[in-house]
């Protein structure tokens, strides 16, 4: 009896050992082919067009859907970033822009297939683009910036050719088609799930994908985790090769310290949203790869409402611009990780170029600030509140304290107001905040786009609520300006106006710190500021 049990025990042990030996390498193998990406945010919809979609959902959709075209990449100070000026075909094999710039003709790849195996046709493209400009979705407002407004503009020429007509030669039409929203959907599949109330299958596409992208959704737990598996038939990346990783795990980990631990221990492969202090210490340890790219399409501001006294007085705004402790703020908020937009020197008092955002010739100069304040009629200063949102506290809190201290020296008494995110956005939208810090991001960062969207009109993104007809006229004119030299001239004029009027103060462009395992390669900073999983591979 004893002998038997001993024998069975040994058998079990031996089998377990064998199993362990047998499974261990294959497990390691699959780990190397899996990318585990941890993030503080989460994916809330599989269709990025749904109002309320998170940035993480935008990033995901780049891999689950293809678009007609995509941005190329370029090196900026040794880091790979997206290139607005290089537009490559994705589902389009090639495209032609007519000489007058009013027609763009796309020829589709013959071999492109949706994930269910059906071919991608011009009808699918038309349906998808129609959806983007007609359905009540996010794509509508985006495509508007590229003069794409009506379904009549998209015409099917033959099953593999589609023609886009423009009312004006808009430089941003083509780049707009490479953004997140105008993704190409399998129209037959989507139509099967459309209803009379929901002709564009919004409800179904929120939970399901019908694309041709590099990755197929394996499981989707909103707010927690998404797992993707590679679409072996996908070949829109490097020639004749699917994406590198066989499996992608996108996992929400709310605590930044935990994310830092995970990537340091090698359990996670890549993370974007760590605290600046953690990034610095991880970089110092040197075990991981840290790719810091200034977010060259994003800007952090200290904004003043140009309609509310005393900030309606240009000299008050100038006084503030010379009373901010830029260097200290930059170090305290970002640990110096970013691109400063202050402290330029303009030898002849004119902007150095016509590119926005630009470095302004402002620096901490309390005497100058006091002069401006006197000129404004506030020699004794005044009281105001400075607001920021809770979600930004780690950066904004030290900033606010430094601003309070520095403005106190010229007699401006500042109360710091910390607002929950939803309340902050509401107050900004209603134009009720006098003095605050916020950031913006533009997917298509061209000078006229910035001025048209962030310095025009009574809308949320015009933080400073500036209302200057000359500025609007120049920016609108620049939009359709085909001549590069004239465009540059318009840009210089706008930048000079910005410095003169000082509607708000550009502080810096924060770095995006991508921290990844030393073996991960190919990271590129994309316009949507998320990881594009298709770019990555492992050594």
């Amino acid at each position, binding site marked *: 009896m004893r002998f038997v049990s001993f024998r069975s025990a040994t058998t079990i042990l031996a089998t377990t050992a064998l199993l362990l030996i047998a499974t261990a390498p294959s497990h390691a193998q699959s780990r190397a082919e899996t990318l585990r990406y941890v993030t503080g945010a989460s994916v809330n919809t599989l269709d990025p067009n749904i109002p309320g979609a998170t940035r993480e959902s935008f990033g995901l959709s780049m891999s689950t859907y293809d678009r007609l075209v995509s941005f190329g990449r370029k090196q900026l100070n040794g880091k790979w970033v997206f290139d607005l000026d290089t537009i490559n075909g994705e589902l389009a094999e090639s495209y032609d822009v007519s000489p007058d710039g009013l027609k763009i003709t796309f020829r589709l790849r013959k071999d492109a297939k949706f994930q269910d195996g059906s071919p991608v046709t011009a009808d699918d493209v038309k349906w998808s683009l129609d959806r983007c400009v007609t359905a009540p979705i996010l794509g509508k407002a985006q495509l508007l910036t590229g003069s794409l407004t009506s379904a009549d503009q998209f015409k099917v020429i033959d099953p593999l050719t589609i023609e886009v007509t423009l009312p004006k030669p808009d430089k941003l039409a083509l780049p707009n088609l490479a953004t997140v929203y105008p993704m190409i959907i399998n129209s037959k599949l989507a139509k099967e799930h459309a209803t009379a109330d929901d002709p564009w299958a919004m409800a179904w596409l929120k939970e399901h994908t019908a694309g041709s992208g590099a990755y197929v959704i394996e499981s989707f737990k909103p*707010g927690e985790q998404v797992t993707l598996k590679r679409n072996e038939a996908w070949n829109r990346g490097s020639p004749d090769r699917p994406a590198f990783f066989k499996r992608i795990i996108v*996992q929400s980990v709310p605590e930044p310290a*935990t994310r830092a631990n995970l990537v340091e*221990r090698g359990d996670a492969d890549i993370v974007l949203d760590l605290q600046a202090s953690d990034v610095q210490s991880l970089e110092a340890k040197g075990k991981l790869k840290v790719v810091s790219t200034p977010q060259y399409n994003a800007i952090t501001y200290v904004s003043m409402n140009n309609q509310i006294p005393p900030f309606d007085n240009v000299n008050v705004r100038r006084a503030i611009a010379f009373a901010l402790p830029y260097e200290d703020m930059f170090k305290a908020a970002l640990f110096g990780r970013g691109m400063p937009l202050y402290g330029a020197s303009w030898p002849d008092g004119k902007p150095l170029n016509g590119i926005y955002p630009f470095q302004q010739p402002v620096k901490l100069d309390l005497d100058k600030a006091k002069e401006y304040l006197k000129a404004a009629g506030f020699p004794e200063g005044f009281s105001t509140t400075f607001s920021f949102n809770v979600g930004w506290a780690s950066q904004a809190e030290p900033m606010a304290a430094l601003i309070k201290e520095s403005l106190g020296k010229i007699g401006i008494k500042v109360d710091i107001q910390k607002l929950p995110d*939803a309340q902050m*956005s509401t107050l900004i939208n209603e134009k009720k905040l006098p003095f605050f810090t916020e950031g913006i991001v533009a997917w298509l960062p061209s000078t006229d786009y910035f001025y048209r969207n962030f310095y025009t009109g009574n809308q949320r993104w015009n933080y400073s609520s500036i209302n200057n007809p000359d500025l609007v006229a120049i920016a609108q004119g620049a939009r359709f300006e085909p001549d590069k030299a004239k465009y540059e001239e318009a840009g210089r004029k706008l930048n000079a106006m910005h410095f003169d009027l000082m509607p708000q103060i550009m502080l810096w462009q924060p770095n995006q710190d991508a921290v990844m395992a030393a073996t991960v390669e190919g990271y590129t900073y994309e316009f949507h500021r998320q990881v594009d999983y298709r770019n990555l591979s492992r050594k």
Partner: protein
Amino acid sequence: MKTGLGATIVRAGRRLLSSLPALFGVLVFTFLLMRVLPGDPAVFFASGPNAGKEEIEQIRRQMGLNKSVPEQLVFYLSDIGHGNLGRSMMTGQPVLKDLRERLPASLELTFTALLIALIAAVPLGVVAALRPGSIVDHGVRLFCALGVCVPTFVSGLLLIYVFYYLLGLAPDPTGRIDVFTSLPPQHTGFLSIDFLLAGDFEGWWAACKQLVLPAVSMALFVIAPLARITRASMLVSLGSDFVRTARSIGLSWRKVVVTYALRNAILPVITIAGIVFSTMLGANVLVEKVFSWPGVASYALDALLSSDYAPVQGFVLLMASLFVLVNLVVDICYGIADPRVSIE
């Protein structure tokens, strides 16, 4: 015994009925509270780089915010009547589905934590009460004080740092299960039970390992009230006449302490355990955040920060119902622990 049980059930039923108006009050109150809070959810969610007035209006329509508050309340109540808690903007899912998926995670964690806390606290309290003023008593007091004064997220982060980061003993603190383990078929939602039902012991072990650190950091925080209450009521009960009598007639130590003293002392502990349980369920946001635990509390906090009305309302309703339920269970436990309670 049967009459005792019957009385308990009748009492429980009466309690349940009398709590319905309170639940309704909670419902209406939370609804109004959310509307009074500053912050327009539509503006927050319309945050794409080009979202303008039109998008904001559309989200407002989608959330039903374009109607007047009384109208919204009527719609909300009729929805609740149909078992519909609305849709979360944050996750894009129906709130009921979200809560159903997340509640087992919170419950599993809270039950485990409470179990750990009780297993640790009751013996500690008893030991302290048996030797009041001794080194042991002071030791217990020190331990309890430490447990209470270290906030749960600090102890959580410390535990992660030591057991995951330094020693590598614990699995990565990211949710209920290692991302590479496949999930068992869902029956109860409690992973530790579902894995057992599926006969997957490796998975069960993985799920338990994930559970240990968050449960311990939560337990540390609630050991103190439980141990202190046990000690206090044990002292009373040890000093009472029946214990003196039991001792004098020479009953065994075990019989005196466990059967007579402890059983009489356990009532306040049950009460406190019930309260502690309800509080833990809602208040373990920090632990859930630190360990990326997909529970209801962190879900509600995220929703609150973004003024996402439906999930917050759903969460408060859920908590209120659970509180009623916990009170019921506590009542029934009373009846079992001390049959005298059932006599009215």
